[in-house]
Structure formats: structure tokens, C-alpha cells
């Protein structure tokens, strides 16, 4: 710096990273913040629209001339009240919750054991079992729902939430197993070897050493499974017939959409309430969720 001859070179070197980071204010605004703002606006607008519609009285809903559609002048809880007291909505919520928790628990148990066997008990052919489970993830529900409907009928489970609890693990287990294999991999072998030397059985090792260390992975797998089973649609549509046993997404579409005049207020209120549980659940565990999403892709 003291050397004047070196000054231009230093300035040059400083200018280069500056242009890379687009630090010149206006350019940064145009290239980053403006497009980013547009993305956020477009990605969030349907939710804003959903929320604002749920609290609008019908008169405002159908009259854009006298009321600015982007705002509510006299908010009302009528749609939500209608939903909660005149429809079976609380019941649908309960069924969905039951199915989501049941299938999540089932898949967590199954995939923890499977991932432990594949990654830690290591036997001949364990990579192939892992690959097989991974391939199962690539089989989309749209191919399976017709034969699965006949299987569900054979088992006498048609129209029962139990059918959904048993069927959802088909897409949850592959994902969770793959995620947990990654987590188990990050736990040092030495810990288990020490325990083995101390005379612990393998199940004790799983319960007292591996599982406590894999808790972040279990949480990620758990919330992922919960949101996936909460959102599932095609199986719930095909296997559940009676109005009382439907899950929220199916029930809103089949029970609330009636006739030619759609009650948009109630429909949007139902969508909002149906989205809230996952949204809240998600916001509590955002970091786990993002890490599981990206972790599973990287695997």
C-alpha cells in the first residue's frame, strides 16, 4: 500500500471482486432485489388471495366495482363459522391428523430399522436392498392407485382411514430410509464398536447410541412424512367413499364444491385452514425440512 507503484494494481484487484458481487448499488437492486421481489410476490400471491377471500363477506367478494378486491373493508368470520359448524370440517381435520400421524409413525419405525440394517449391520447385498428401496420412490402413485384400490378392497379396508395409514408408507418409507441412511453414515463406527466391546447387544446400541445421535435425521424424516401424508390426494380420493372419513384435501374438493355456484368464501376458508397445520408445523422445523429436502437430493 505504501508503495505508490503498486497502487493501480491493488485498485484493479479490488475492482474485480466488486463487479463479481455486483456491489454497485443500482445494479444490485436491478439484478437481485427486483427479480427476487417479483418471485416472492408471485409465489405468495395465491396465499394472500386465499386468506383475503376467506374473510371477505359475499357482497364484497362478487363486487370489484365498489370494493377494492385487494383489501377487505368489512372482514367477516362467516365463512369460517359456516365451515366449522355447518360442515363436517372438524371431523375431516381429525381424520387427516390421524392418518398423517399414523402413517408417519409407521414409516419412521419401518425406515429406521431398515436404514440401520442396511447401513450398520451391513450384509452381503445390502447396497442392492438400499437401491431397491430407492427405486421404490420412483414409482408414482398415479400408476399404483387402480390396482391398490383392488388390494384395499381385498383386505376389507375400503373406506377406512386404516387403508391410508397402511398405504402411505409406500412413498414415505423409501424417502425416510434414504434420508436416515445418510444420517447413520455420519455417526462414527467407533462409538458402536466401544459399546460392542463393553458387551452391549446390537439392539441396545441402536436404542442408546445410534438413535439419540440420529435425532435430527428422525425429525427431518418425521416432518417430511407428516407434510407428505397431509398433502396426499389420489389414494385418499380413490379409497375413501363416505363423507365422514375423507381427508381435508379430498373433502374440500368433493364435499364443498357443490352445484354451479361455488361458495368461494367457504372454499378458500377451507383451503386456508387445511394449509395452516402444515404451514405451522413447517415453520417450527424449517431448517430440518430444508436440510432433508436438499440432503435427499444430494444423496
Amino acid at each position, binding site marked *: 500500500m505504501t508503495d505508490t507503484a503498486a497502487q493501480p494494481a491493488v485498485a484493479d484487484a479490488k475492482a474485480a471482486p466488486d463487479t463479481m458481487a455486483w456491489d454497485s448499488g443500482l445494479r444490485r437492486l436491478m439484478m437481485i432485489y427486483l427479480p427476487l421481489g417479483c418471485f416472492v410476490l408471485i409465489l405468495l400471491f395465491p396465499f394472500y388471495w386465499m386468506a383475503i377471500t376467506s374473510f371477505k363477506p359475499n357482497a364484497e367478494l362478487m363486487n370489484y366495482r365498489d370494493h377494492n378486491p385487494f383489501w377487505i373493508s368489512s372482514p367477516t368470520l362467516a365463512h369460517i363459522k359456516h365451515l366449522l359448524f355447518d360442515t363436517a370440517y372438524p371431523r375431516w381435520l381429525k381424520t387427516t391428523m390421524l392418518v398423517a400421524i399414523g402413517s408417519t409413525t409407521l414409516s419412521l419405525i419401518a425406515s429406521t430399522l431398515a436404514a440401520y*440394517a442396511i447401513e450398520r449391520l451391513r450384509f452381503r447385498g445390502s447396497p442392492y436392498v438400499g437401491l431397491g428401496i430407492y427405486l421404490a420412490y420412483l414409482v408414482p402413485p398415479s*400408476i399404483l392407485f*387402480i390396482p391398490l384400490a*383392488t388390494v384395499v378392497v381385498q383386505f376389507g379396508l375400503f373406506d377406512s382411514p386404516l387403508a391410508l395409514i397402511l398405504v402411505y408408507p409406500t412413498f414415505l418409507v423409501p424417502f425416510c430410509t434414504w434420508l436416515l441412511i445418510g444420517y447413520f453414515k455420519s455417526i462414527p463406527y467407533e462409538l458402536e464398536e466401544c459399546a460392542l466391546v463393553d458387551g452391549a447387544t446390537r439392539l441396545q446400541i441402536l436404542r442408546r447410541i445410534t438413535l439419540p445421535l440420529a435425532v435430527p435425521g428422525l425429525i427431518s424424516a418425521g416432518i417430511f412424512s407428516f407434510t407428505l401424508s397431509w398433502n396426499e390426494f389420489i389414494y385418499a380420493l380413490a379409497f375413501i367413499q363416505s363423507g365422514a372419513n375423507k381427508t381435508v384435501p379430498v373433502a*374440500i374438493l368433493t364435499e364443498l364444491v357443490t352445484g354451479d355456484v361455488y361458495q368461494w368464501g367457504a372454499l378458500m376458508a377451507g*383451503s386456508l385452514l387445511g394449509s395452516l397445520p402444515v404451514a405451522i408445523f413447517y415453520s417450527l422445523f424449517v431448517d430440518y425440512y430444508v436440510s432433508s429436502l436438499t440432503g435427499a437430493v444430494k444423496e
Partner: protein
Amino acid sequence: MSVTTLSSHTLAHRQPSWLVRLFDYKPFLIVMCLAPAIGLLSVFLTYPLGLGIWLAFTDTTIGRRGIFVGFENFQYLLTDPLWWNAVFYSVVYTGIATFGKFALGFWLALLLNNHFPFKSVLRAIILLPWIVPTVLSALAFWWIYDPQFSIISYLLVDVLHWRSSNIDFLGSPWPARFSLIAANIWRGIPFVAISLLAGLQTISPSLYEAAMLDGASAWQRFRYITFPMMMPILAIVMTFSIIFTFTDFQLVYAITRGGPVNSTHLLATLAFQRGIAGGELGEGAAIAVSMIPFLVFATLFSYFGLARRKWQQGEAND
């Protein structure tokens, strides 16, 4: 004497814990650990997959066991304009939506890869369209696409005065098709962006520094560093995206149910309409099975993407 005492001693020691010992016997433990997962997947995934292929070759309907009819279902599908229509729209839908999702998602990932305040909050918010139940956000889109009270029409007609009449989003075939594609892109952007962002963050900054010393422009840095480094993860995310876009069901079923005049049927919605709603299980299964060749193609794409990555890194890693 000493031998018998020893053996009786060990026996007494072992006797109560035979169950524990059984569970500590490795082959048994492996079987027990794999049993729930493999059991569930065999009964509810592998068996139905096989059954579905079998059903496609029978004339089963709801309530009646069918008989084997060979390729009759497929021959019928080949002459069925509705099936061709669904294949056409499935391909168009997948093609345009995947392109849109990846172009916009990649752009969003590049934007998010910069430093700015509240980045993690923004990242969390951006994922919302992906975690909310698709059917419920599809309902919001249905309302946004309403012929009379569409907010987009309101903006274009009454606020910006760009048009004189409301847009009929879902009333005629091509606008309906593109409306659905737009909704699908909207839902897919977050997943693509967040996955690709994870990939972007693994690229070492020193590569960019080296390129800048050599005088590479921003476009060249993107073209020769970012893009090639992202190829492996792009291949995987794209395979998933293609598979699940091609077999999409919820969006179309929620917004148009295949209408107007069957122009927006995807193979999955057509299979549902024929198989479950119409009761023709055999024919529905045949439509579902006809998706498999496309999916195999996508999976091979993924496989070669992965192989290429291993080859690039020169070692077996996962």
C-alpha cells in the same frame, strides 16, 4: 466335574437371555429389521405394480373378476382419440412445465445464492407453495382463474386497461392447458430452487476467483463453471420433476377435471376417470401402464446422470 459346573454355570447365565441372544444374532436381526419396510413395500407397492400390469391385460370391472384378454385394452387405446389427446397433453404439460420450472427455479437459486439480509426467512417463505397441499393451492388458482371474478382479468382490464374483456382462462382448450401449466410451474419453482441452491453452495468460490483472474465474464463463469458443476444435481432433480410432472393428477383433477371437452386430460386423470369413476379397472390400468415407458426413460436419464457424476469425480462416492 469342573466341566459340568462350568457348563451348568454358563447355561444358567445364558438361559434367561435367549431372546436377547436371538436378537443379537446378526442374520436374524437383519431379517427382523428389514421385515417391516420390505413387507410394507412388497404388499402395497410391488404386488400392486404387478397386479396393475396383469389388470391391464384383463377386462376387469368393479365388482367383476375379469378374464385375460391379451392386448385388447392397448389396441383399443391406440384407436382412442382421448388417449392420444392425453398422451399429447401429458408430453406438452411435462415439457413446458419442466422447462419453466427449471429456468425460473435456476434463476431463483442464483438470486438466493447472493448475500442479503433475512436470507433464511426468505428461503423458508419461498418453499411455502411446495409444502401446502397441492389441491388446496389448486383451489386458489381455480378462484384466480374464475371467468367472472378473476383477479388477473381485473388487473388487466380495470386497472391497467390492457384488455377490454375478461380472460376466459378455463373455458377453451388452449388457455385452459396453459393455465394448468402455469399453476404447475408455480408449484414446482420452490423445490427446484431450493435443491439447486444446495448444489450451488457446494461449488468452491476459488473456481470463480481463478476464472476471474483469467478474465472470464459473468456469462462465461456461469457457462463454464456453474452449469457444468450443477449438471449432476440438475440431472437428479430433473428426473424427479419429470416423473412427478408426467404423472401429475391433483392439479388437473382439482381445477378442470380434464375439461373443457376433455382437452386437459393427463394420462393419470384419464386413468382415474375410466378406472375408478367409470369402473373399467382393466382399461384404467392399461392407461396407467402406458405411462411406464415414459418413466423408464426418465429413470435411465437419472442413472446416466449419476454415472456421469461418478466418472467426473473419479471415485465411488454417494
